[in-house]
């Protein structure tokens, strides 16, 4: 019974806690008071689940029992070093029984989204609406909860911003919640302390500060009205206290520009549904939520980019530095160094071609100017958050002069209720710290010792502060050096509220009681307010009374249920005419010498906050398909000039600071510039996944030039480094390939072999709008390789007849199929992370990915076409095609992969012996094999995250996309119970659900009225590798692009 294995202990804990739950209700009037209970439980690891009152009373008998039954654990308990070993056995540990057994709902009432079961029905998930707070605006989500454990996060379908769609970061916050490296205690000087002790110390200290003099808060960007309200109250009580909001990746450019141009801080909201022409000035609005409003922008873009009769297809122009998915979706993309973009934008305002531009740029400029002018009011200019303030100012002017304001763009209040220019504020804070004005520095959810600009020497200043407090999810670089570390509650564990892109307020409601008793910034502020015992719930309710109109109680319930508060969206703000010339282009920081270096948030890890999330580390980064690590991205010419190869290391020197980085060629990157992604190179404190991955680009980033800088020197460093690029696993092939082109760096039409082959083989098919109008069947013309052979050419034409009628109902059976619109896919990766969460896909680590063993069931293939300096890229989500005539089934010697009558190619994991023949015979190479034991069967916290409807695969077993068969079956069961057919739209696969652009459609292709059948009936519909006669059930809609004939 003691250590007979995790499984038995689990069951034991579960049954015990259930019986004890009964006991608890019977002896409810306990001798202990609630306050005493709370005090006892404070500082304990794990969820505050208690088994019986003896435990709380800590009677000697109970202590004896503890020591007797779990002697090993009780010794490990105090030893901080063996925490990981402890995690393994914590299923048996009493204080963690809450984790292992059934979990408890939060104390405060929260409301299920769709159904309100009187009691929990085990095995039937419940859905709750909440919001993922993010600096660029909260993402409203709907969380799937199984037995009160959040197991999947998706967009809230009823919310106007997300409409059910989501993004990679939001999806991955699930793993963030269950991250086994999260901090679990309040620490004081590294020793376990308690929240109560902190409160006491904090209150006592602040009492001695006159008016809060010397009390400084350094917070992440605030999007919560309640937190802002709490701050206002706090400031009223302590007028000298200071709040600095700062994040390494921020919106300073737009703030500075809007202040200068309009005199006040505004946020821009773009209405792409009304835009025929979109001009992006370094804005990666299709890449992810790093760009504000990603979800509605991507959805509207894709909607207007779909070719439909009677709809003008939009046209996207992108002028960008670092290649992004947005750039590659564009009809016309111009790669410029960041220093040139401001000049180009200014030239657009003035109407005269930029000075010193080459012919190509000039032609681009004149065409673009003409196009914008003719489509005034139906076009929009979007500046990127990582572009300079001058670009933003130009965009304001352009939008105004083109008459777009009020039509395709509106200006509103800022999502951040306390907008500020963050770097300037941080500088002021560091100055105060150095001047020893700061007595208490309370850092809320921020990790400045890792991410602060290198020139500020934050550590020196930090050491001059008598008391530092760090509220964070991990004992990270900052937490480990702070006097106090407070373990932060995840957003899925805490009450809050947040504004989304359009200003709509969502109530952030907890899905689960804090796993480790974490606290939020609300609790920290509340500690100093009039009623320190008030919870975040109370604070949110108090604020909510100001924005929830009408009868509070029902409307509060409705807000929780819906996930948003009606009528809180921002109205358009009338700004004056933009001031011209308010923000000069300015000179390039760092001077014109050397290379320009561009700092960008990592496409997968953002500013480093997700560095310990394995899903995101392993996620192939957009465009480069680099998994794990980051690299110095540059064009082939820059590589050639510097005599570098792809496996080389390079020393990046900027303003005397150096960092060593591996080199990666990035097609389409502007020549003479290098991009580094922030957020990697975390130190050991960051966690088991994050530690030591990549290099730390913050080390060379200064506060004067946080976006880009000139004067970077790159020199070859000794040694070499093998990056793992999932697109082409063999790095040596890439390296040699790149070198091949050094000889003729400006080779006309230099192309890539994989890209060429993809075209030749009909993997990617697309046409321009003109061509499409001329030959609507272009996807099927040309090579005979593009067509599926006639049914009769098969020796067994009727091996599977999918038109059969079910003998009992006489109805044609279901035939599941998928259609993916390549016109809509923007390569944002949301689907891959969604698939991770839905299907319990393991993370395998850098070394395994490097040799090609990544386990993602779904990948986004990126094919480059044409000139390597200005390529076109095509994104193609590729997953199991569920072939009707599947090669894998034929060759499996044990029948572990078989066909269902509904046409799904299923894997029987239990039957698989692992010959891997199926993978060899799969032309799409979408099967994934557990070469080693990849799934983590030991880490307790990860067990709670797993989808109970999908088995966790062990070593030696093949796996692959199942079309989310668990969702299909669930829908069929529901339909059966309701005595009806499965309706179109009942089944939504995980990838489809996440897709921000509705590129993926799934359903019954035998139902001719279904969306998928309609898509498949389109002329542009084609099957990849059709000529092999595998008859895939997944088909693709060939892309149509709408280039300007002038530039073609």
């Amino acid at each position, binding site marked *: 019974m003691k250590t007979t294995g995790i499984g038995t202990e689990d069951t034991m804990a579960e049954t015990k806690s259930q019986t004890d739950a009964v006991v608890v209700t019977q002896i409810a009037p306990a001798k202990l008071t609630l306050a005493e209970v709370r005090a006892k439980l404070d500082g304990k690891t794990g969820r505050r689940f208690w088994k019986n009152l003896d435990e709380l009373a800590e009677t000697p008998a109970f202590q004896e029992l503890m020591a007797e039954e779990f002697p090993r654990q009780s010794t490990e308990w105090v030893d901080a070093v063996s925490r990981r070993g402890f995690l393994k056995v914590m299923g048996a540990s009493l204080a963690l029984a809450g984790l292992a057994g059934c979990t408890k709902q939060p104390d405060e009432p929260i409301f299920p989204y769709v159904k309100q079961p009187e009691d929990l029905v085990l095995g039937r998930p419940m859905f709750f609406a909440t919001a993922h707070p993010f600096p660029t605006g909260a993402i409203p989500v709907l969380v799937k909860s199984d037995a009160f454990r959040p197991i999947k996060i998706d967009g809230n379908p009823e919310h106007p911003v997300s409409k059910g769609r989501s993004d990679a970061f939001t999806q991955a916050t699930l793993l963030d919640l269950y991250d086994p490296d999260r901090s679990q205690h309040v620490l004081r000087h590294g020793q376990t302390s308690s929240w109560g002790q902190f409160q006491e110390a904090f209150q006592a200290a602040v009492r001695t500060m006159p008016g809060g003099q010397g009390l400084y808060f350094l917070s992440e960007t605030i999007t919560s009205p309640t937190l802002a309200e709490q701050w206002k109250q706090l400031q009223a009580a302590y007028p000298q206290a200071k709040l600095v909001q700062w994040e390494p990746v921020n919106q300073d450019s737009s703030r500075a520009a809007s202040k200068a141009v309009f005199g006040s801080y505004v946020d821009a909201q773009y209405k792409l549904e009304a835009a025929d022409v979109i001009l992006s000035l370094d804005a990666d609005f299709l890449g992810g939520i790093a760009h504000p409003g990603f979800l509605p922008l991507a959805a509207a873009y894709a909607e207007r980019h779909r070719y439909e009769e009677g709809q003008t297809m939009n046209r996207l122009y992108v002028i960008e530095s670092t290649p992004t998915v947005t750039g590659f979706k564009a009809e016309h993309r111009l790669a410029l160094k960041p220093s040139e973009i401001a000049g180009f934008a200014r030239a657009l305002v003035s109407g005269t071609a930029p000075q010193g531009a080459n012919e190509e740029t000039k032609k681009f400029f004149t065409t673009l100017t003409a196009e914008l002018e003719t489509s005034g009011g139906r076009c929009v200019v979007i500046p990127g958050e990582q572009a300079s303030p001058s670009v933003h100012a130009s965009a304001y002017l352009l939008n105004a002069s083109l008459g777009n304001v009020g039509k395709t763009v509106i200006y509103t209040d800022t999502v951040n209720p306390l907008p500020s220019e963050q770097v300037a504020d941080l500088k002021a804070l560091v100055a105060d710290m150095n001047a020893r004005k700061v007595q208490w520095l309370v850092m809320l959810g921020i990790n400045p010792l890792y991410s602060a600009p290198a020139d500020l020497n934050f550590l020196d200043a930090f050491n001059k502060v008598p008391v530092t407090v760090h509220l964070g999810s991990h004992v990270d670089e900052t937490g480990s050096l702070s006097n106090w570390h407070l373990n932060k509650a995840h957003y899925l564990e805490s009450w809050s509220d947040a504004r989304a892109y359009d200003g709509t307020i969502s109530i952030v409601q907890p899905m689960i009681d804090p796993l480790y008793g974490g606290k939020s910034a609300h609790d920290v502020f509340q500690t100093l307010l009039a009623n320190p015992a008030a919870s975040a719930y109370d604070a949110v309710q108090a604020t909510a009374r100001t924005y929830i109109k009408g009868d509070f109680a029902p409307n509060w319930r409705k807000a929780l249920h819906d996930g948003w508060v009606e009528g809180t969206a921002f109205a358009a703000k009338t700004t004056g005419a933009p001031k011209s010339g308010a923000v000069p282009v300015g000179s390039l920081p760092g001077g014109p010498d050397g290379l320009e270096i561009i700092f960008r948030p990592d496409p997968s890890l953002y500013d480093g906050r997700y560095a310990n999330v394995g899903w995101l580390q392993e996620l192939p980064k957009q465009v480069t398909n680099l998994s794990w690590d980051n690299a110095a991205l540059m064009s082939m010419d820059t590589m050639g000039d510097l005599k570098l190869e792809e496996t080389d290391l390079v020393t990046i020197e900027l303003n005397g600071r150096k960092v060593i980085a591996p080199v990666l060629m990035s097609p389409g990157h502007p020549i003479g510039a290098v991009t580094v992604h922030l957020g990697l190179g975390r130190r050991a404190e960051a966690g088991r996944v994050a530690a030591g991955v990549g290099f730390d680009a913050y080390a060379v980033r200064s506060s004067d030039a946080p976006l880009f800088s000139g004067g970077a020197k790159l020199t070859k460093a000794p040694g070499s480094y093998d990056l793992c690029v999932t697109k082409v696993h063999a790095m040596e092939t890439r390296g040699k390939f790149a070198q091949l082109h050094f000889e003729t760096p400006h080779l006309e039409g230099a192309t890539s072999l994989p890209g060429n082959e993809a075209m030749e083989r009909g993997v990617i098919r697309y046409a321009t709008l003109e061509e499409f109008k001329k030959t609507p069947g272009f996807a099927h013309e040309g090579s005979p390789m593009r067509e599926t052979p006639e049914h009769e050419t098969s020796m067994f034409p009727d091996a599977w007849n999918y038109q059969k009628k079910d003998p009992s109902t006489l109805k044609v059976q279901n035939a599941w199929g998928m259609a993916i619109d390549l016109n809509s896919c923007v390569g944002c990766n949301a689907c891959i992370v969604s698939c991770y969460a839905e299907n319990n896909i393991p993370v395998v680590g850098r070394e395994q990915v490097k040799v090609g063993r990544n386990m993602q069931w779904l990948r986004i293939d990126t094919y480059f076409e044409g000139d390597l300096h200005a390529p076109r890229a095509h994104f193609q989500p590729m997953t199991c095609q569920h072939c009707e005539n599947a090669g894998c089934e034929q060759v499996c010697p044990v029948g572990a992969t078989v066909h269902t009558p509904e046409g799904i190619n299923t894997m029987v994991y239990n039957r698989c012996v692992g010959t*891997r023949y199926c993978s060899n015979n799969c032309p799409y*190479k979408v099967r994934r094999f557990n070469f080693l034991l990849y799934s983590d069967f030991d880490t307790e916290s990860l067990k709670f995250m797993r989808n109970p409807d999908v088995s966790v695969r062990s070593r030696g077993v093949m796996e692959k996309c199942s079309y989310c068969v668990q969702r299909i079956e669930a829908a069929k069961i529901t339909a059966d119970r309701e005595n009806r057919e499965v309706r179109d739209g009942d089944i939504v696969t995980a990838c489809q659900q996440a897709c921000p652009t509705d590129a993926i459609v799934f359903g019954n292709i035998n139902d001719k009225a279904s969306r998928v059948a309609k898509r498949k009936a389109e002329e542009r519909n084609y099957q990849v590798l059709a000529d092999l006669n595998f008859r895939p059930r997944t088909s693709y809609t060939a892309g149509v692009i709408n280039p300007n004939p002038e530039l073609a």
Partner: protein
Amino acid sequence: MATKGPINDPMIDPRTGEYAVIAPGHNFKSVTQKIAGVVLTSNTPLGWFFGLMVAGGFVTLLVIGLTWLVLKGVGIWGVTIPGAWGFAIINFVWWIGIGHAGTLISAILLLFKQTWRNSINRFAEAMTIFAVVCAGMFPLIHVGRPWLGYWLFPYPNTMNVWPQFRSPLAWDVFAVSTYATISVVFWYLGMIPDFGTLRDRAKLPLAKYFYGILSLGWRGSTRHWIRYESASLLLAGLSTPLVLSVHTVISFDFAVAALPGWHTTIFPPYFVAGAIYSGFAMVLTLAIPIRKFYHMEDLVTLRHLDNMAKVMLGTGLIVGYGYGMEVFMAWYSASHWEWFMMWNRMFGPMGWAYGILVLTNLAIPLTTLWSRKLRVNVGYLFLLSFIINTGMWFERFVIVVTSLYRDFLPSSWGTYVATRWDYIIYVGTLGLFTFLFFLFVRFLPMIPMSEIRMMLPQTKITRGGATAEQVSEESA
């Protein structure tokens, strides 16, 4: 045939111009003493112990490799997606191929009454069995969950599931297990008369006992001989189709798949020819040092080496034709898949493997084996046998790896890099093979005494009941 060798070579039969199958001057006793002496001697040569020890070291390596493999999983190898098969399958096909020469020698050549085979058939058969032991290991250990490998066998079970008979891997199970069974039975049957001889000649009681049991009461009566001969003939008849079928079925592992480079109808004949090619090379690798070490030059003569070299030349030409046809069909089919595969195989990043293949399998052997001088040059043949087996290993490498690593979708192109565990297990099976062979030459008659005795001139009955020997003695 005109005499080409040195005229005064006593080994050359002046009547045929060929080397003699058995050197002149042997009689029943000398043959028996020579062969049985190796087994029954009390002075085991030190070299044998040394060789066994070295081979045993490699076997230990194999055991370590297999243990780690079972503990960690096939991920310790270089297999990956897209190259999900690697060394294990290459080695499997290579070893099975090597075994083929033994069966060909013991079965087909018996049916064709090629008496020269008698000198080499015993150890060629032993080679077959040890090669099958090494080969048979791979299909099992290469799967992800080897402890469930028995699921490939059709056996009644409570799960009520059968193997999936459309899969060539299920056919493999039958092909290889049949092959192993027949080979062992044939090998053992052939040794029964020799076991009788050893039993009779053994001095040690243990050896007497041991060989006595194995000889199954062989007394050498005419009735025994009649039964022995008909059983041999029957087994030869059974084995003959196996020579062709086993490697045909193994080639189906590839040919049935849809992968360019695998999906081709030429595989069965070209696999069989390749198997015999590599098998004869391996027989040479073994025969040359053994005849030297145990002074068996009289029994395994240059005639044998010459003949085996001729077989290699013939099968090598078939293999060469196979390669040519692959290229031709890739072009003639006008299929982009095939042509790209061929282009990539020859000039892609792994073109070096194809280069080695052409050099070692075609260029070197097929140019030199025409020369009789080189065919009877023991040193050259020994070297060539290694070259050919390297080439045949690379043939399988080229087929397995260079077809897989760049297939249909350019996005999933990858590469294949073998790990140290791949090499350890490969070298380990070479060690196991050698180890078993060392045991064989020490404890079993490596050359069939009974069959050699039958080939002596003394057995030729002439008029008046005189043996040929008596006749020749008289004429002398």
